[in-house]
């Protein structure tokens, strides 16, 4: 228990350091883009947000598969925590994207394959949360099934941009990033992942405590 608390404190500390230093790192190291100016900096938030969203979807999908086939309630609690974060970081991506697109493409939204499939993925996980909330008894299993379909969609979203000619920058942009952009970019990715781990850990513990309260209440009612 103490070891777990120590580990969780380490992640909290890492996230705090990385996030507080993000703005100074960007100001000191990220190069200025001549045509887009300050708006180009959205790249450093937009791409990490989608990376984390995809990671959250995979955590949710794998935890759902474990829950579905082994019925371990802990896996389900992890899945629902990850699904909420997938929606949150997806919203972040869907908000920062149009802000960048307005300046770069001249429109807020483009019905482009990449954007459309990303929106579908976001909708799938909003549907997951709706199902959890309004599906009644047994909705844990149903939502686990839905999460598997959502996870199957991720590779498609990621590579869709390479299949079709689209307006969205291709996935080769990130692996071929060079200094001075690469440093601040990977810093932001690390900061977002640390934030994700902190939030996932907190959210999962909340679910565990809820389950413990339910168990106590049931035990009290039985007495």
């Amino acid at each position: 228990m103490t070891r777990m608390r120590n580990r969780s404190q380490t992640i909290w500390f890492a996230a705090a350091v990385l996030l507080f230093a993000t703005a100074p790192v960007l100001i000191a190291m990220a190069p200025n883009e001549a045509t887009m100016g300050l708006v180009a900096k959205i790249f450093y938030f937009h791409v990490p947000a989608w990376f984390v969203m995809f990671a959250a979807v995979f955590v949710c999908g794998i935890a759902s598969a474990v829950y579905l086939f082994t019925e371990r309630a802990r896996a389900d609690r992890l899945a629902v925590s990850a699904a909420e974060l997938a929606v949150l970081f997806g919203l972040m991506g869907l908000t920062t994207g149009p802000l960048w697109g307005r300046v770069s493409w001249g429109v807020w939204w483009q019905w482009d394959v990449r954007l459309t499939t990303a929106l579908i993925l976001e909708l799938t996980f909003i549907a997951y949360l709706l199902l959890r909330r309004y599906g009644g008894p047994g909705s844990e299993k149903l939502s686990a099934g839905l999460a598997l379909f959502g996870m199957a969609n991720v590779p498609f979203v990621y590579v869709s941009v390479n299949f079709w000619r689209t307006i969205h920058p291709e996935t080769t942009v990130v692996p071929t990033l060079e200094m001075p952009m690469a440093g601040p970019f990977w810093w932001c990715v690390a900061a977002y992942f640390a934030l994700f781990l902190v939030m996932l850990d907190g959210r999962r513990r909340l679910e565990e405590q809820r389950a413990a309260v339910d168990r106590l209440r049931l035990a009290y009612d039985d007495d």
Partner: protein
Amino acid sequence: MGEFCRIAWLVMRKDLRVEVRSRELVYTTVFFATSCVLVFSFAFVREGRPLAGVEAGIVWVALAYAGQLALGRAFERELGQDALRALLLAPVERSAIFVGKLLGIVLLMAIVEVVVVFLVTLFFSSALIEQAFWLAALLAAATVGFAAVGTLFAAMLARSQSRAVLLPVLLYPVTIPVLVAGVSGTIALLAAEPNLDQARFWLALIAFFDVVFLTLTLWTFEPLMAE
């Protein structure tokens, strides 16, 4: 394998027999799809002439809505006298039951598709039937993917009180890729110079999704339907 096919066939035959006797699903879904086409005709006909290139969207949206209606009702029927539980308690492979239900829904949707394509061709002076083979291939492939996901979700939700609301909420985000590919493939066929290469590409994409969806649905039906 033979036993699997036999069970699937028996479940499908049971569904078809119920349907032949009541004709409830065929009548309601065909009527609903016709109403959809009519509503679209009010939206997309200007000064007596249909707008160019809207037929593809009309066909697929009408089919998706009608399919959703059929899916919901197909499992609601099983709730009477606890038939769903009896079906699941049968000492057979559950995936065979799933395939049987799926085949029944695919057949029903095929009937609706024939009617919708005929109506759209008639009302919108469309060239849909000129590329009948490729259109049929697109429709058949997309129906399998749509119905596979739909059958699984409808079965999952059968016991949920808010199933009528939740089925479309779950069904559309997951099946949109298939519907988008279907619409895009049909648009390629309806061009002044039908673009068969593009239609083949979209057909291949639907086939890819069919494989993913069928694998996932067959894999998860058993644990999802456990009480």
